[in-house]
C-alpha cells in the first residue's frame, strides 16, 4: 500500500520546485523584454547623468564591449540556458552596475543586516500581535480589550513611512536617545566585541521598533477576528458549559485553533524577508536588501535582480513547503492524503 505520507511530501516538494522554476523564468524574461531596462544603456545613461564626459565617438564601442561583458549576446533563450548553467554551479555572475563584483558578494553584505532586522521584528511582532489579538478577541467586552483594539485601529492605517519618520523625529531629534541612521557607529569595524554589538543594537532599535509597531497592528487584527469566530464554535460553547476554566479554554481550545492561519502567515512573511524593507532602509539608512533590489532595478542590473529575486522566490516557496509539511502536526484534522 502506498504510503500517503511519502506521497504528500513528494507532491509538495514537486510543487515547490515548479514554483521556483516559474518564478525564476518570469523574473529572467520580463526585464529583458523592456528595452529601457537594458543594463548596457543604463550604464551609459548613468555615466551621462552624473556628468561624465562621454565621447560620442566612443559610445558605440562602449556598447559593444559592455554587451559582451554582461553576457547579453545571443537570444534571450541562449542567455537563459547560460544562466541556469551558472546557477546550478552556485554562480549568480557579476553585478552589472558594480561590475565585476559578484552578485553573491553584494547580497551577502545586505542579507545579514536584512535577515537580522526582519527575522527579529517579524517574529516579535507576530508573537505580540497574535497573543494580544487572541486576548482581545476572547475578552472582547472588557475595557482593556477595547482599548487595545482602538490603539491597533489607530496605528494600523498610518502609512509606514509616516510612522518611521515620526519615530525618527521623536527619538533621535526631539528627544535624542537614538542615532539617526546607519547600522553601527562611524569609525567602528564589524567585530565580535561588546562595543560593536552594543552599537548595532542601538542603531537597529528605531527601525525595529517602527517595524514591530506597524507589524503588531496587522497580526493583532487578524488574530482578533479569528478568535472572535472560533469562540462561537460549538466545542467552545460546550467547554464553557462544562465549567472548564477560561484560561484552559483560551489557550487549549481557542488560541490553538485560531492561530493556525497566523502560522501560515508567519511562514510566508518570513519568506518575504529576502525582499528587504525598502522604506525602512531609506528612512534609517539601514543597509538591507530592499534598497539593493531597488537600485538594481533602476540600473537594469539583471544579475543582481535575478540573485535577489531568486533568494526571495526560494525562501517563500520553501516557507510554504515547510508549513505544508508541518501543518498536520499542528492540526490533527489535516491528514497526509
Amino acid at each position: 500500500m502506498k504510503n500517503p505520507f511519502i506521497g504528500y511530501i513528494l507532491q509538495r516538494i514537486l510543487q515547490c520546485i515548479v514554483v521556483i522554476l516559474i518564478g525564476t523564468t518570469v523574473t529572467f524574461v520580463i526585464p529583458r523584454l523592456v528595452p529601457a531596462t537594458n543594463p548596457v544603456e543604463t550604464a551609459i545613461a548613468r555615466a551621462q547623468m552624473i556628468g561624465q564626459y562621454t565621447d560620442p565617438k566612443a559610445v558605440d564601442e562602449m556598447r559593444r564591449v559592455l554587451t559582451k561583458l554582461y553576457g547579453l549576446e545571443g537570444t534571450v533563450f541562449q542567455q537563459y540556458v547560460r544562466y541556469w548553467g551558472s546557477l546550478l554551479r552556485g554562480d549568480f555572475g557579476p553585478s552589472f552596475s558594480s561590475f565585476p563584483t559578484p552578485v553573491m558578494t553584494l547580497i551577502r553584505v545586505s542579507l545579514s543586516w536584512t535577515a537580522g532586522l526582519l527575522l527579529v521584528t517579524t517574529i516579535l511582532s507576530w508573537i505580540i500581535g497574535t497573543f494580544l489579538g487572541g486576548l482581545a478577541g476572547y475578552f472582547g467586552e472588557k475595557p482593556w480589550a477595547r482599548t487595545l483594539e482602538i490603539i491597533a485601529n489607530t496605528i494600523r492605517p498610518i502609512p509606514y513611512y509616516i510612522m518611521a519618520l515620526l519615530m525618527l523625529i521623536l527619538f533621535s531629534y526631539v528627544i535624542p536617545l537614538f542615532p539617526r541612521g546607519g547600522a553601527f557607529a562611524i569609525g567602528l569595524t564589524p567585530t565580535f566585541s561588546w562595543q560593536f554589538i552594543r552599537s548595532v543594537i542601538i542603531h537597529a532599535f528605531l527601525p525595529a521598533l517602527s517595524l514591530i509597531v506597524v507589524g503588531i497592528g496587522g497580526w493583532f487584527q487578524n488574530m482578533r477576528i479569528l478568535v472572535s469566530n472560533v469562540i462561537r464554535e460549538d466545542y467552545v460553547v460546550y467547554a464553557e458549559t462544562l465549567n472548564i476554566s477560561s484560561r484552559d479554554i483560551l489557550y487549549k481550545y481557542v488560541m490553538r485553533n485560531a492561530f493556525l492561519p497566523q502560522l501560515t502567515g508567519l511562514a510566508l512573511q518570513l519568506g518575504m524577508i529576502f525582499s528587504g524593507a525598502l522604506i525602512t532602509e531609506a528612512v534609517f539608512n539601514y543597509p538591507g536588501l530592499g534598497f539593493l533590489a531597488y537600485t538594481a532595478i533602476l540600473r537594469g542590473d539583471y544579475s543582481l535582480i535575478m540573485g535577489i529575486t531568486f533568494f526571495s522566490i526560494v525562501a517563500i516557496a520553501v516557507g510554504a513547503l515547510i508549513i505544508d509539511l508541518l501543518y498536520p502536526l499542528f492540526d490533527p484534522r489535516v491528514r497526509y492524503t
Partner: protein
Amino acid sequence: MLFILVVSLVIPTLSFAQEKGLEVAPGIPRSETLILENPEGRIANPGKFNLWGGGGGWSTGLQQIAFDALWYIDPDAGIEGKTWLNSLAAEPPVYNKSFTKMTAKLRKGIYWSDGVEFTADDVVYTVKTLAAHPEMSWGAAMKVNVKNVSAPDKYTVVFELSQPNSRFHALFTVRWCACYIMPKHIFEKQKDPVAFDFNPPVSLGSYVLKSYDTAGNWFLWERRQDWQRTTLGMLYGMPAPKYVLYIAPGPPEKRVMAQMNHELDVIHDIAPEGVVTLMKKNPTSKAWFDDFPWAHPDPTLPAVVLNNEKYPLNMKEVRWALTLAIDIVDVSMASYNGAATISAIQVPPTGHYLEWYFDPIQPWLEKFSLKVGGKPFYPYDSSIPFKIAEKVKKDLGYNVPSDPKEVKARLGYGWWKYAPDVAEKLLLSKGFKRDKNGKWLLPDGKPWKITILCEGEARPVMTRAATMIAEQWRRFGIDAQAEPIDLLWTRTSYGDYDASMIWNVETWGGHPDLFWFLESWHSQYYRPSGQATVSKNFMRFKSKKLDTIIDQLRRRDFNDPKCLDLGLEFVKLSVEEMPTIPIMSYNVFTVCDEYYWTGFPTAKNPYTDPVPNWANTKYMFVKIKPVKR
C-alpha cells in the same frame, strides 16, 4: 509582559546619548572633521575603490580628495581668479596644427601617498591600460582616440591621436569628473585591473582613506602628512580639515535635522522648503546666495526635450506653439518656489556664461521675431525675471533683491512670452483645429496627446515643473499628462517619448566652449527612435547649419575666440528651431553650516563650486577655516 518590561528597563541603559561637538568616531574630533553629504546614498560595494574598473562610488570622497587629474575647469570663478586650473599638469595642453598630437607637461614634486613619485609613466600606463580594457571607465574613449602614448622624459607625455581631435584634453579635464591617473606601481602588479579592488586606495590627492563603512553609508578620510607633495597642498597650502567624512544622511528631512544639530556641514541638495527652514532656524547655515534664491546654478540646463522625429513635434511652428503656451512664471513658482534661474536659450545661465552668452545675445533676442499670420511677433520678454521676483515677494514673502543686475544674475535674463493666442495662430496655420470642447485636434482630425516624462521622486523639482507645464498645456487645449518614471534616461535615449523633462545641455561653466555636449548633436551621430542615442541628441534634431557649426568648432583650438562666435550662432539657430524648450539651470540647494567651519564658497566669494559631489570641491578644503569653539 515580562519580556516587554525587561526591554523597557534595559534599552534606556543602552541609549545613545548624542554628545554634540566632541567626537565623530572614536579618536576623531568633530572640530577637526568636515562632514559632507554623499548624494549617491548607500554604496552597494563600498570596498571597491577602483573607479576605472567600475568603482564603488563617485561621491565618497574618492574623486574629490583622493584622486587627481591633469586639469580642472572651475564652473565658477576659480581659486586663482581664473577658471582654467593646471593640476597634475604644469601647463595647459599643447596640440600640433592638425590636432593629431597633444603634449602634456607634468608638475614635478608630486607623490603618491605611499611615497612613490608621480611621473609620466603613470599617465602612459593609465592610457594604455584603459585602451586595452574598453570596458573600463574612459576605456572606450582611449581606445578610439589614442594611436600611441609615450613619455619622452619623466614629466612629459605625448599622445598621438588616431584622428584629429581638438578637444582630446576634455577627457583629462575635470568638469564634474575626468579621467584620473592610476598608480602604475600598484596596478601593474595586478592580473586583472578591472577586477582589482584597489583597497585601500593609494592617493594622489591630499587625503588618504582612514576607514569606511562596510555597509556603504560613510567614508572617512585623513589628511596626508605629506600634503605638501600634492597639487592642492603645493599650490594652495594645507587643507584645513584633518578629517573628512562623506556620509549618506538619508531623506531630505534627515539632512535638515542633521544640519540643525550641526552634524552635517555640507548638504548636497534639498528642496527649497528645506532651505527656508534652515535659513530660519539655523543661523549658521549658509547657501550660495545669502538670501533668495539661495541655490547654486550648475552649468546644466533642464529643458522640455521634444522628440523632433515624432509628428507633430517635427514642425518648428508646433514646437514654438508649445513654448508660447508655457507660463514660465508659474513653472518657476511650482518647481522651485520661484528660486529658478530661467534661461530662454540653450546655455545654462551660470558663472561666466552671463557675460559670454547672455549679455551679447540680448539685443538679438529682443529683435527676434516669428512670422504669425504674415506679421512679426516678438516673443522675447526680458521683464519675466522681475515678474517672478514680484510674485515671490507677494506670495511667499521672501527677501528678493530689487537691484535689476542682482535679479538678472539670480533669476535669469528673460524668457518667452506667455502667448497662447499666438500659439493658437501658429497651430491653425499648420492645419490644427479645435473640437467643440476647445480641445486641439491634429490636422488629420485625431486628438492631440502629449506625455511629458519626468523622474518622479528622484527629482521632485523637475517633476513639479513637468506637472505644471502639462497643466498649462491642458489649459491650452492639449491632452497633456506628466508621467513620472524611474527609467527616464533610458526611455528618452531610445526615443520612446513625446516630451521629457531632462537635460542634454551641459557646459564647462568656466569655459565658453560648447563642444562638451554639442559634438553629439552632429548628424553623424544621429540615431532614429528605437535605437539608443549616442550621447546628447535625445531630441533627434538634424540640421545642416548645426553640422557646419560643429565642424568649424572641431577645426579650431579650444581657446580660439571664434569658438564663442560659433557658440552664439548655435544659440540663434536653436532659438529659431526650438528643438528643445530650455527652462532653467539646474539649481542645487547646497547648504553649508558655518558652526564648525567657515569660508565656504558663495556668490560673493565664488572661488569654486560648493556642490560636494563635484571633483573641484577639493579647492574648498584649502579655503575653509575652523571656527574656534
